[in-house]
């Protein structure tokens, strides 16, 4: 088989497979992963269900976030902040499965969202060095 024909077949193959992958890709947003809504810092988001805000303050212990496992209630707004013991890249806080990521520069900065589905989610710093578990029940 001539190389020109092989190149043609390869292009078709890559376009077909790539097109299939591309057509099945979803934009990663909090909504299409879990149906969660992300509120602004003061919780003034029209999608946010009413209810008491569940405030969580994480600190640093043994080189990791503490508490390491956090339980919250479904449907109630959650506000996560990091105290002053947490430094460096650990302040770049993410819950990847919920599509949440925010750099909490100071202890007064918060990551606010409302979990709308039960489940267990992993939270971590942006490089995945510090990790923990968020249980929505």
């Amino acid at each position, binding site marked *: 088989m001539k190389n*020109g024909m092989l190149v043609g077949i390869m292009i078709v193959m890559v376009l077909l497979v790539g097109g299939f992958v591309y057509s099945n890709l*979803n934009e990663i947003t909090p909504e299409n992963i879990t149906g969660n809504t992300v509120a602004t810092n003061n919780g003034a988001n029209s999608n946010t269900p009413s209810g008491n805000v569940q405030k969580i303050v994480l600190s640093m212990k043994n080189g990791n976030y503490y508490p390491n496992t956090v339980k919250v209630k479904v449907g109630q707004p959650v506000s996560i902040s990091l105290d002053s013991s947490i430094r460096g890249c650990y302040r770049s806080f993410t819950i990847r499965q919920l599509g949440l990521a925010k750099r909490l520069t100071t202890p007064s900065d918060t990551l606010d969202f409302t979990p709308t589905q039960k489940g267990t989610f992993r939270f971590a710093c942006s*490089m995945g060095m510090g990790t923990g578990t968020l249980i929505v029940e």
Partner: protein
Amino acid sequence: MTFKHFITELNGNRVEGELIKSIFYSLLVSFLFLGILYFFKFRYIPGFIDKYGFYLFFASLSYAVLLPTVRQVRAYNQFSCMSGMMIGMTIGMIAGFVAGFYIGATNGMLMGSIFGSIIGILLGIWLGSKCGIMGFMEGIMAGFMGGLMGAMTSVMMLNDNLRLATIFIFVISSIIMIGLNYMIYAETKESNREKSEDYLNIIMISFALIALTTWIMLFGYRSLIFA
């Protein structure tokens, strides 16, 4: 001797005329492997394309771009120290980087670093050693560095646009590998081919690389399935 001559040789009788076939066989093996597994198993995993399919697709493309160099280097077999070091460094670095990048994107820094480093070091040593101990050492160092850097890059991009970064890294890696193929052509223009072989090597290596990548990506201890 220009790049135009190299392009002409891609259809010629030298080993350069077999590079496109190597890419073709590698792509075919990877796509068949992934297609069969997708049809029987992977399509039942929720969000498979989002979580793994995209990276497996680019891993297949990246391995297909890497492997023609294996054929080209094995065909000439003997290189000067300068060329051998460049070959060991480039193949070690790029192989380590892309392998580490795709595993890092789905399994975190540790798995990505280890897998990327192992792939980079093995390929770097194998091809770099065609010039002796200097290429051998260059292959080890570049493979190790590439593996760590690939995993680190993907993990750091997780909260940015990792998909766009994947495309960018694939394009740059491909340009570098084509540059390496051209360099080998330019350095061996006056040399005769020492080894002639069929495409079984390319098929086996492609299969091993994509199978290992898929296995670690899906069943590694920090894969999203187990997260």
